[in-house]
């Protein structure tokens, strides 16, 4: 039973984590809207989620066999998913943040995050109903 509950929650947990990660990327973009040479980054959500669910996402690292080797493992498990955005209009200072795109993506991502939470709440509620058996 608990195993099943775990499995049900796993998907939503991964999705929620990924949404939080994307929110962080987008807020970095918005914060650096005026930083020269900053390149905006984002993830392809559905691709990233598929990757995360298939467990293909664990930090891939090179083997370090000598003390002089540099540890190449990414700091966060989602690190490898972030991609640079293609700019729509180039700017003089080399910054690729398009505020409209970022704001829209940020709002959309926040909504999806809330949706995920609603799903989890619904799942927990129906599980509770099942457990109570009334």
């Amino acid at each position, binding site marked *: 039973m608990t195993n099943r509950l775990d499995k049900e929650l796993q998907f939503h947990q991964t999705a929620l984590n990924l949404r939080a990660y994307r*929110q962080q990327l987008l*807020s970095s973009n918005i914060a650096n809207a005026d930083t020269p040479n900053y390149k905006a980054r984002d993830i392809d959500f559905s691709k990233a989620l598929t990757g995360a669910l298939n467990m293909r996402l664990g930090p891939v690292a090179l083997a370090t066999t000598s003390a002089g080797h540099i540890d190449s493992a990414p700091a966060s498990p989602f690190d490898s998913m*972030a991609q640079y955005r293609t700019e729509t209009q180039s700017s003089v200072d080399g910054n690729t943040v398009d505020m409209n795109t970022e704001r829209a993506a940020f709002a959309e991502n926040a909504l999806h995050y809330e949706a995920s939470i609603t799903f989890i709440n619904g799942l927990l509620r129906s599980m509770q109903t099942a457990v109570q058996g009334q």
Partner: protein
Amino acid sequence: MSSMLDVFKIAGSALGAQSVRMNTTASNLANADSVVGPDGQPYKAKQVVFAAKPVDGSADAVGVQVEQVVDSAAPGRMVYDPANPAANTDGYVEMPNVNVVEEMVNMISASRSYQANAEVMNTARTLIQRTLSIGQ
């Protein structure tokens, strides 16, 4: 996994940086006509230089910081005013190199960026609150 809490640090760093930018703009506009500064020279317009800075060592949470405040290298405006004690032998006074139009644009841009980041913070707060109320 503290992505959502990092959003606060990111937006916070941007709020700080934008307010420094607003400060220099205010200083520039206030001194647009200051012919003599503390060093006896005309006031030089100040500009901030932003740089991206990871907030906790990870490459994903990138905040922004003011790397330095530089004096503008633009030449000062020369105004003919022989009666002014600061005038040179030809009767010209060197005014500060503040470009008022540029400063106004800077001010609007800083204020818009500040608003955007404050909104980011609000959204993050709402989302964290929702997360904390899971299962209630």
